[in-house]
């Protein structure tokens, strides 16, 4: 029995992870992941607001065009979108001499572009669903007060819809965090990328990937907790009295 324990001990007590050097790498990966996800989400949110209003508009061509965009980005894997952004843009003839090249050259920006467009597509559909589900009474009341469309959106429809979209948007944030793990295939050293490097160098898959899984777990729970708090405050009017 003791021999058996000794022979499995190496992968239970593998120490490749907890050297100062690798821990510093993990920290760098953590920062990169948080930055990448945060910036993509903020840009995606900014993009999704006007798009969801356009999607709900009575202007058919506009609504249809936005639907096609969300259909394409929600119907294909983010990995394919990332490959297109990373390799597709770089191989456009003449692009290496153009002024956008410094942006495309850095793997961060193609990744941000793909992530932003992807999360914007999902967010647009979430907001659109919430806008469409706005109780008719609220809209009619706004009209009766003589509000213009713009003002009705600003004062009544959006505040009400965005609050109701909060739980679904919270899921999207976690989805984006998890989806960002593919950034390592375009050489970005995010959390997953660091774990992959540690695995490849020390052949320590358990410690490398379990440790990184725990990091993601902590991040996911933190996001979930934050959204729970936010929902409690923002949706207080929808709670049963």
């Amino acid at each position: 029995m003791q021999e058996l324990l000794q022979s499995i001990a190496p992968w239970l007590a593998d120490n490749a992870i907890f050297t100062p050097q690798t821990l510093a790498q993990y920290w760098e990966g953590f920062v990169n992941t948080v930055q990448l996800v945060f910036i993509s989400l903020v840009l995606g949110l900014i993009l999704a607001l006007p798009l969801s209003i356009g999607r709900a508009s009575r202007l058919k061509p506009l609504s249809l065009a936005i639907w096609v965009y969300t259909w394409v980005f929600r119907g294909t894997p983010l990995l394919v979108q990332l490959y297109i952004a990373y390799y597709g843009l770089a191989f456009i003839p003449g692009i290496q001499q153009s002024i956008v090249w410094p942006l495309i050259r850095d793997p961060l920006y193609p990744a941000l572009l793909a992530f932003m467009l992807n999360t914007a597509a999902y967010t647009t559909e979430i907001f659109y669903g919430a806008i469409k589900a706005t109780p008719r009474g609220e809209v009619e009341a706004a009209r009766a007060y003589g509000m213009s469309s713009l003002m009705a959106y600003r004062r009544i429809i959006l505040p009400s819809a965005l609050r109701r979209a909060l739980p679904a948007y919270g899921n999207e944030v976690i989805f984006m965090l998890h989806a960002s793990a593919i950034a390592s295939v375009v050489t970005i050293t995010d959390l997953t990328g660091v774990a992959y490097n540690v695995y490849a160098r020390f052949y320590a898959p358990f410690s490398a990937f379990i440790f990184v899984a725990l990091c993601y777990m902590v991040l996911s729970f933190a996001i979930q907790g934050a959204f729970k708090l936010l929902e409690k405050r923002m949706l207080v009017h929808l709670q049963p009295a």
Partner: protein
Amino acid sequence: MKKLLTISLLSAAVAAGSAQASDDNTVRIGVDVPYVPMEYRTPDGELTGFDIELGNALCEQAKLQCSWVEQGWDGIIPGLLARRYDAIMSSMTINDERRQQVLFSDPYIVPPSAWFVPDDSSITGTSQQDMEGANIGVQRGTVQDSYVTDNYGDVANIQRYASADDVAVDMDTGRLDAAFLDYPTGEAALVDEGNYKTIGEMLTEPKEYFGEGFGIAFRQRDEALADKFNQALETLRDNGTYDQLHDKYFGGGGGAPEPASGS
């Protein structure tokens, strides 16, 4: 439905057996393809390269029936330990980190590692100052990765790829300023294909990183099998077969890998 799934999973997942590989005369060799000129496929699909031809010659000499099994680099050692194949002959550098996992044959070639840059590059040397701020491409988990990470990690931006081909593509896009690869591979993937050159010295030192050269890897308990390969290697060196192969792939040009003296 449920039953069908279980069966198909099991049959695919579990292949158990008890005969040790060296008992009969068949040996399966794992290899990560392509890694030109060491192992690659010709356009009509035939597997060839220095490792492949030398491996086949070794098997013939040792009177073994050899077959090649393709396996990506990331999983190549786990695959050996799992008996998916019985040896690895895939440009694997002998070093201490790997020795903990596998048993190596004598080195059969000592190829240097080399720096590659575009012909019109402004990088002229390979010191830390020369590489300051540069994007350096390496293949993840190789000895080149370890060397660059430890020696240039603080000054340069190291980008790690799953294969040497991926490194070459991002040299083509211009994302990378320099690549650090096995010399024969970089020569084939970059210098022969486009406007690239090597700079600085070829590196085979320090041994801590670059080891003693490429070796064939076996499971640690298969010492008898490793001995057979070592003996065959010595015979091929003596009778000139090894030199013929070495000339065919590397000629006599500058930077050719040393033919690894017998040890």
